[in-house]
């Protein structure tokens, strides 16, 4: 693949990220793909489901719904060194001011492909997750899915008797819907997504119920409509999208280990496009405006939670491409408005920036990219260096037998005001959400001034391809972090009469450490009608004496294994099995019992899900039964988090179309 074709291929999937900043994995190195058939057969209906299918570590989840991503072990926990890109548009998630991951503007059940790329790009040192939504067919069409999960372990009729037991979770209905009109170059799409989870974990319920007015139970309710207009032609692509999401949430305050019933409302409007000029020149533009309100739904006056965060990103790029070179000059800016205490603090920060991206391919099998970006803002008097820079490097050595050896390396330096580190916002006046009396100004510990967050990344992958289509990939990787900001968790479960946890907000500046790992992946057909993928990942953090880094890094299991298999025992009927195993992990910031002390430890665990699907009416309908957590062992990803148990999900997916003039 030439650089130009790679760039054009990248452009076809992206109208926002400059091609020169695309990740190195333009070919098939460092990439895990999940296609629409696998997504449909698995019953995936949430973003978390997609990432689990892609082998992206689903991190920890306190509430069973929110999660942190760690794609392919490429990031250390709580270091968001990866980038999430939905239909070519970057979607910041995971940070204190970012949208909930499930509020991204797509319907997960209608996704065409998910790609987890662990190679660095000049915009993300830890890799990238790309989600492409399926395009609707020509004419009028509707597509959607609905499912509901039934639980086990309820008291049933016994709840009225002396043998009553606590209730169990209810999951769903979960549904996603898209109506679309597509004609010539124009496409109009309207989508709606809804989701419900009613949780009953005895460990969770008392903490949450305490904060409600009345007898509400822990629950999550999601409603998210969107409208998008696209225009595409051979030489141009333009899109306008409006998205709204409302989530009645148990918002995780990770630093205090408690959940706060809240309402998150998220508005977003974006416009993005590109226009070719001649053979080699092109312009790209992107405007993205969004606002997020977070409101508490609690009677507890000690909850300081209201926040309004608005952001406007604009970027205009001029690019030139040739067979071996691509160069892009971008001018843009970021406008941030933070209103954490209405009437008291209303902070607006503008950060104009200029960026230069260059990529070149001196010989086939090589690709290099560098980027330099500078912020023109002088809002932060504590810093002097205002230059962000990044570079990536890839070499592929292909053997005659088709096996390949790929090397990738990169580094990225993030300015605090660009990376939007919590510590930088604290200096601007932001106060993290807090509960209880201990809500004095958050303390910053560590370096006396803010540092650039620097991340270095290197990895090598050796891929062997065997006759019959099976591949064996051996991956080694390392990440080095310097200058990051992390919350310092210091959390103790309260006495029995106070079910809420007691925590303290502190942020450490200048945190550094390293993470090394190796992975073995075997993938390919298991028979004429079966396919599977096995991943075994081992990671080892090196704290280099930094206790804050160590306390976060060891929350990641050292060994993870996942197995995904799909088969069609009879035509048009499929069985998909997901199995995963994780070693135990320590959570030093969490002390379950102050009288005995010691760390909270998540034991090693195994999880299995099985989905059976049948296509009906051609490929228009698919009915499905999926057993989640089929081993019926409590499955927990956070020491104080929600525990999931066996549930049967029943669902149906449909795709119906009508083209005027055709029967």
């Amino acid at each position: 693949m030439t650089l130009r074709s790679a760039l054009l291929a990248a452009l076809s999937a992206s109208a926002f990220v400059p091609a020169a900043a695309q990740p190195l994995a333009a070919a098939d190195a460092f990439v895990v793909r999940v296609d629409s058939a696998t997504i449909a057969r698995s019953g995936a209906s949430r973003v978390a489901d997609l990432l689990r299918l892609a082998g992206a570590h689903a991190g920890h989840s306190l509430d069973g719904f929110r999660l942190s991503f760690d794609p392919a072990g490429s990031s250390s926990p709580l270091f968001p060194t990866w980038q999430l890109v939905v239909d070519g548009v970057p979607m910041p998630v995971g940070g204190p001011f970012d949208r909930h991951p499930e509020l991204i503007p797509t319907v997960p059940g209608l996704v065409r492909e998910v790609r987890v790329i662990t190679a660095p790009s000049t915009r993300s040192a830890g890799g990238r997750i790309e989600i492409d939504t399926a395009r609707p067919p020509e004419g009028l069409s509707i597509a959607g899915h609905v499912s509901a999960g039934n639980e086990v372990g309820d008291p049933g009729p016994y709840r009225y008797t002396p043998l009553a037991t606590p209730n169990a979770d209810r999951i769903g209905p979960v549904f996603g819907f898209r109506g679309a009109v597509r004609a010539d170059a124009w496409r109009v799409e309207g989508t709606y997504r809804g989701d419900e989870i009613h949780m009953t974990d005895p460990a969770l319920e008392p903490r949450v119920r305490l904060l409600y007015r009345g007898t509400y139970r822990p629950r999550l309710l999601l409603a998210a409509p969107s409208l998008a207009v696209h225009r595409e032609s051979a030489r141009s692509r333009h899109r306008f999208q409006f998205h709204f999401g409302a989530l009645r949430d148990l918002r995780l305050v990770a630093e205090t280990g408690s959940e706060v019933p809240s309402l998150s409302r998220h508005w977003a409007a974006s416009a993005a496009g590109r226009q070719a000029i001649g053979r080699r020149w092109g312009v790209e533009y992107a405007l993205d405006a969004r606002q997020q309100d977070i409101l508490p739904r609690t009677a507890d006056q000690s909850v300081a939670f209201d926040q309004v965060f608005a952001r406007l990103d604009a970027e205009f790029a001029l690019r030139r491409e040739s067979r071996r070179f691509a160069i892009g000059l971008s001018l843009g800016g970021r406008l941030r408005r933070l209103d954490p205490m209405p009437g008291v603090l209303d902070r607006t920060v503008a950060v104009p920036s200029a960026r230069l991206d260059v990529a070149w391919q001196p010989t086939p099998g090589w690709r290099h990219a560098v980027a330099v970006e500078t912020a023109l803002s002088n809002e932060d008097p504590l810093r002097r260096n205002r230059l962000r820079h990044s570079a990536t490097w890839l070499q592929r050595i292909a053997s005659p037998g088709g096996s390949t050896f790929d090397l990738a390396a990169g580094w990225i330096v993030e300015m605090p005001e660009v990376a939007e580190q919590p510590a930088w916002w604290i200096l601007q006046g932001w106060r993290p959400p807090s509960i209880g009396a201990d809500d004095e100004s958050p303390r910053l510990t560590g370096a006396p001034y803010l540092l650039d967050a620097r991340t270095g990344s290197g990895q090598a992958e050796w891929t062997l391809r065997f006759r019959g289509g099976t591949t064996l990939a051996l991956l080694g990787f390392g990440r080095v972090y310097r200058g990051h900001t992390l919350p310092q968790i210091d959390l103790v479960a309260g006495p029995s009469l106070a079910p809420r946890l007691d925590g303290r907000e502190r942020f450490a500046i200048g945190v550094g450490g390293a993470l090394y790992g190796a992975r073995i992946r075997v993938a390919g057909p298991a028979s004429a009608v079966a396919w599977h993928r096995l991943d075994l990942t081992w990671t080892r953090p090196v704290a280099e004496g930094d206790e804050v880094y160590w306390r976060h890094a060891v929350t990641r299991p050292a060994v993870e294994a996942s197995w995904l298999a799909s088969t069609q025992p009879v035509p048009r009927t499929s069985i998909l099995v997901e199995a995963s195993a994780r070693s135990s992990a320590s959570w030093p910031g969490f002390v379950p019992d102050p009288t005995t002390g010691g760390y909270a430890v998540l034991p090693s665990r195994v999880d299995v899900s099985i989905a059976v699907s049948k296509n009906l009416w051609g490929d228009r309908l698919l009915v499905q039964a999926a057993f989640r957590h089929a081993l019926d062992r409590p499955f927990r990803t956070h020491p104080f988090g929600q525990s999931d148990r066996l549930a049967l999900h029943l669902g149906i997916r449909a795709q119906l179309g009508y083209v005027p003039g055709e029967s």
Partner: protein
Amino acid sequence: MRFGTARFALLALVASMAVPGVAAQDAAWSTLRISVAGAESVTRVGMHTWWRPTTGAALRVEAPFEGGFLEAGARFMPLGARTDAVPSYTALLAWAGWGGAWRPVRPVRLSAALRAGMLRMDFAEDIAFAGVRSESELTLGGAARLEIVLSGRLGVFAEAAAERTLTAIEIDQVHASAGLLLRVGAPRWVREVLR
């Protein structure tokens, strides 16, 4: 009497042994066997200390499929309260199953199937318990069935179904049902959809 795990497993095993189609198979989705029945609970388990099951009704549809047949059905059964301490409730079991059939002699047809479904319980109470008046629960089981064909399309049948409802205190029950069945060719649009 609690329907023991061993007996439950035995019935499930018998049902699963019948799954590979041992009778001459109709083409997939070519016919529909529609049955209506009255149903009774024939076991007495712990919950029957508080509730008395009454006669229920069931509807089931079966169609030939690879390796046997697929079925879907629903059974509605009211349960009356034996004491004032608990409310009466109605139980609606909706299930799907996969099984096989055997015709030893005309006009007899034996079949067995594995089933998975949801049992929804709606409680007749004035004040909702913790905000809800109903519960749904996963139910697994197996069924054995004897059919006698009276004519080309019409028949009668009797069925025994063993079910385990996965509540915190698992509820194992056997239900017996008997009724009429009608065998019809699947309409073209039904075959089109199912195919």
